[in-house]
C-alpha cells in the first residue's frame, strides 16, 4: 500500500546515496509534494482552457459590450499563446498573485485572505472535536469488546457508528438547524458570530468523521490487543489501564493516523456544503457563488487553496507517521 503511493519523483533519488534515512525520506517526500503541487497548479490552469466557449463572455453575460469583453480578455492575458499564459500564471503565483476577479476586479488573494480563516477554523475545530471523541470511544469500545466480549455492545456501537457516518453533513446540518435553532432556539440558524455560532456547523462536520474514526480506532486497537507484546505488558503485571494507554493505544494510533488524514481532507470538502447551509462566510460559500457566476479566477484560486490544503495534510500525516513509528523510515528506505 505504501509503495503504490510513490510518485514519479522517486526515481531521481537513489536510496542509500544520501547518508541519513531521515534526509532521504525528507527529499523523497518533499519531491512527491512538489510534483503533486505542480499537478494541482497545472490542473487549475488547464481548467479554464477546458471550459467550452469564452470564459470572460460567459462571466460577464451576453449583454456585455464586445469592447468590455475584449478589454477584460486582454487584461487577463487570454489572447497570448497558451505556453506564455502558463508561464505568466506560474510566475505570478510564485509572487503570491492569484489574479483578480472577472466581475469585481478585486485581487483573488485578498478574497481568499478574507475567507480562509473562517473555513480553516471550522475544519480544524471539527477535526479536533472528532478526534477528541473518537479516540477514547474507539479505544474503550475495543477494550470492552475484545475477544468477543459484550456482543450486544459491539453490535450497538457498530450500527450506531455506521448510521452516523452515513448521514451526509449537509443533511445533518439541516436536521440540526431544525431541532436546535428552529425548534429549540438554542443556536443561531446561520452566520458567523460568537462562539455559539460555531456549535452547529462544527457538530454537523464532526459527527460523521467521529463515527468513522471511532470505528477505525476500535478495529486498530483490537488488532494491537491481539499482539504478543500486549501479553508481555500483561506479563509485566502493569495495571490494565497502563497496558492499554501506554502499549496498545500508541500503536493503534499510528495506524489510525493515515485515516485521520483522509478524514481531515474530507472535512475540508465538507465545509463547502456546511458553509452553504449556515451562510458561513468562508471559502466554501465563495467558491459556490463564483462557480455560479462563472468568475473563474476566483474558482481557480480557491481550487488551488483547497488543493494545497489537501497536499499539506497528506505531507503532515506522512511526516508524523515517520516520527511516531520508528520503523517507518527503515521500511520506506
Amino acid at each position, binding site marked *: 500500500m505504501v509503495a503504490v503511493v510513490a510518485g*514519479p519523483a522517486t526515481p531521481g533519488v537513489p536510496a542509500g546515496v544520501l547518508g541519513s534515512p531521515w534526509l532521504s525520506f525528507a527529499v523523497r517526500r518533499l519531491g512527491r509534494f512538489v510534483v503533486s503541487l505542480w499537478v494541482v497548479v497545472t490542473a487549475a490552469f488547464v481548467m479554464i482552457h477546458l471550459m467550452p466557449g469564452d470564459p470572460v463572455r460567459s462571466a460577464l453575460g451576453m449583454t456585455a459590450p464586445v469592447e468590455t469583453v475584449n478589454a477584460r480578455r486582454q487584461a487577463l492575458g487570454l489572447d497570448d499563446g497558451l505556453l506564455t499564459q502558463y508561464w505568466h500564471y506560474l510566475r505570478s503565483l510564485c509572487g503570491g498573485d492569484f489574479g483578480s476577479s472577472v466581475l469585481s476586479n478585486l485581487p483573488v488573494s485578498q478574497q481568499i485572505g478574507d475567507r480562509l480563516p473562517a473555513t480553516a477554523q471550522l475544519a480544524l475545530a471539527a477535526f479536533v472535536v472528532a478526534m477528541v471523541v473518537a479516540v477514547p470511544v474507539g479505544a474503550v469500545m475495543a477494550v470492552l469488546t475484545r475477544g468477543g466480549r459484550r456482543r450486544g455492545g459491539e453490535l450497538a456501537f457498530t450500527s450506531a457508528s455506521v448510521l452516523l457516518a452515513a448521514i451526509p453533513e449537509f443533511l445533518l446540518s439541516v436536521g440540526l438547524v431544525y431541532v436546535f435553532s428552529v425548534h429549540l432556539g438554542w443556536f443561531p440558524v446561520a452566520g458567523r458570530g460568537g462562539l455559539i455560532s460555531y456549535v452547529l456547523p462544527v457538530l454537523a462536520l464532526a459527527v460523521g468523521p467521529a463515527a468513522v474514526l471511532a470505528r477505525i480506532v476500535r478495529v486498530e486497537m483490537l488488532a494491537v490487543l491481539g499482539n504478543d507484546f500486549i*501479553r*508481555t505488558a500483561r506479563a509485566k503485571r502493569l495495571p490494565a489501564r497502563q497496558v492499554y494507554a501506554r502499549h496498545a493505544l500508541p500503536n493503534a494510533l499510528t495506524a489510525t493516523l493515515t485515516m485521520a488524514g483522509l478524514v481531515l481532507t474530507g472535512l475540508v*470538502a465538507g465545509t463547502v456544503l456546511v458553509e452553504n447551509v449556515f451562510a458561513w462566510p468562508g471559502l466554501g460559500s465563495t467558491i459556490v457563488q463564483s462557480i455560479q457566476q462563472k468568475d473563474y479566477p476566483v474558482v481557480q484560486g480557491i481550487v488551488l487553496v483547497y488543493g494545497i490544503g489537501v497536499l499539506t495534510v497528506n505531507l503532515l500525516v506522512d511526516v508524523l507517521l515517520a516520527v511516531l513509528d*520508528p520503523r517507518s523510515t527503515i521500511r520506506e528506505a
Partner: protein
Amino acid sequence: MQNATNGRTGRNGRAKVLAVLRTPVGGCSVALLALVIALALFAPALWGDQASAVDVDAIQQGPTAAHLLGTDSLGRDVLARVLVATRLSIELAVTATLIGVAAGTVLGSAPSVLPRWAGRIVTSAVNIAVAFPGLLLALFFAMIFGIGAEGAVLAIGLAMAPAFARLTQTLSAAVAGQDFVAAARVAGAGRVRLLVRHVLPNIGEPLVVNATISAGMALLAFAGLSFLGIGVQAPAYDWGRLLGEGLNQIYVNPTAALAPGVAVMVAGLAFNLFGETVAGVVGARASRPSQLKDSATAAAAAPAAGGGGDRPVLLVDDLRIAFPGPAGRPVTPVRGVSFTVGAGESVGVVGESGSGKSLTALGVSRLIEAPGTVTAARLEFLGTPLLRAPEPEVRGLLGTSLALVFQDPMASFNPTQRIGRQLAEVSEQHQGLSRGRALDRAVERLREVRVPAAERRARQYPHEFSGGMRQRAMIAMGLMGEPRLVIADEPTTALDVTVQRQVLRLLAQVRESGDGSGSAPAALLLISHDITVVAQSCRRVLVMYAGRIVEDLPTADLHTAARHPYTRALLAAVPALDTDRDAPLAVIPGRPPEPGEVTAGCAFASRCSLADERCRADEPDPVNVGAEHRVACWHPQDSTPRSRTSSVDTTTAGGGA
C-alpha cells in the same frame, strides 16, 4: 462479461442472492431498494400533475389534510414533489455512477495495456487524484462543464473515476498474479486480450458491488451539488434542489426541507446497505462462533502427590483451561494438569503443538483472558493462591517474582518503544524506582545477559536488535525484578542453533544465580516441543499429550526408564549422530486430537500399538511408579533400556517429513 464458467457462476449467483435476502439487513435493503425503484418508475405518472399544480391560495403552508407535508413557495404539494423527484435523483445518480465506473475501469486498466512510461503517468495521476476528496474534484469539474444537470453528472462521474481506477488496479494486480493468467500469457495471449478476456471478467463482481455502494454516494453527492445550486436547475427538480428550496422556508414549513432530506437518506442507505450486504456475502465473511461461558467448575479433588519437602515455588493441582467452543460446548485444551516446581528446580514440559503446554504456562501465570476460563483445585505461587486473589493483590508478587520469556522475541516487544524503556517499566511499576534509576537498572541487567554496548542498546528499538539479542533482552526484562520462577515458553524455537545454545546457557545461569545479586536462585519451567532441548536444560521433564500430563520423570531416566509409549515414541523420533542417514526419519503416525475432539479413553490410544479395549474406554490417571516418576498409562512399558529400538508403533516416513 462472464465467460467459460457461466453455468457455475449462474447457480452461485442465485445462491448468493438468496443468501443476501436471508440476512435481516439484506432483506430490508432489498425491500427499500425495490421501493425506491418503483417510485422512480411510477411516481411521475401518478403524482406528476399534483407536483406541478400551482396553488396561490396555499403558499408555504405547513402540513394540512390536503397537503400532508405542506406546500412550497408556489403552493405546490411537497410530498408529491418529493415522490416525483425520485426518478430524476436516481437517474442522475446511476448515470454518474456508470460514467465513474467506465472512466475508472479504463483508467485503472490502461497501465496494463499502455507502454510502460505512459502507464506510469496514468498511475501517478490516479494516485494524486485519489488523495482529493470527491466533492472537491466534483466542484473542479463542475466549473469546467458548467452549471446544470448534465455538467453535474459528468462532474460527479469523473470525480468518482480515480477511486474506481485505484480499485481496478488493485483487483487486477491480484488477478494478474494468478496461475491462469500466467498460463494465458505463456500461451501467447496479447495484453489487450489478457485484460478483456481474463482479468476484467474476474474483477467484475467486486466492481459491481462497489458500484452499488458508490451509487448511494453519488446520490448524496448529487443532492449536495443540487443543493448548492450547481446541479439540477429549475424548473426541473431533484431531492437536492427541493432541499435547498425548503431550507429557505425552514421557519415557515420545516417539512419542506426535512422531507427531501429524509428521502435522500433512505435512498442512499438502500444502495449502501444493499452493496455492503452483497459485499459481505460475496466475501463470505464467516460469522463468529457464539460465546458461552464455561460452566465447568473445579472438581474438589484431593491434592495430588508431589509437593513434599520444601515449600514449592509453584504448585498446580488439577488445572483446567476452557474456551467457548463453536457449537456452544466449551473446548478444554488443558484437562487436569498437576505438578509442582521446587525452589531452584528446573522442569521441562514437552509435547507436540496443541498438547496444551503453552496454555498451561499462560494459565499458571494468570495470563489467560476471558472468554477463556482457568480453574484448578489449587494454584499457588510461593504459597500465595493465585486463582481467587484479585489482580491488584498479586500484581506486585507476580511482577517481581515471576519472569516470562516468550517464543517470538520480535513480536513480544512493543515495536514503538525503546528496549530500555520497556525494561525499566517493570521497576518503575513494582519497585518504585524513578525513571532514571529504573533505566540504570535496565542497562545493568542488559549487561548481565551480555548484551554488548548495553547503554547504547537500551536506547534502540526492538527492530534494531538481532533475534538472539532480543531474547537476551527479554530475559533481562525478567531479571528486572527478583524472579523466583522463570517460565520460558519455547524460548529458542525462533532462533538458530548456535544462538539457541547461548540462550539456554543464559537461562541455566539465571537459574543458578538468581538475578545475580546473590539472592535466592530461580526455578525454571521450560516449555519446548524439542525433547533434546529439555533434556539438556532440565532436571525433570513433564510429557504432555492432549491437555494432560502423561508422564513425569527425572531427565536422567528418560532414555532408561521412560514408561509411557508416547514418551518413548518422542525419544525414538529424535535422530542421533549414529542414526542411519539413508533411512527415513522416524515419526509418530497420526496426529494429536484437537481439543474439541477428545473422547473417552486414553487420548493416545488411536496412535498407540498397545491400545486395547480398556484404553479406548477409560482414561488412565497418573500413578506413581517410582519416587519421582508418575505415568498415566494402562500398559506402562517396563524399565529396560530401549532408547533407540522402541517397542511402540514408530513407523517411518519419507525423508522429507
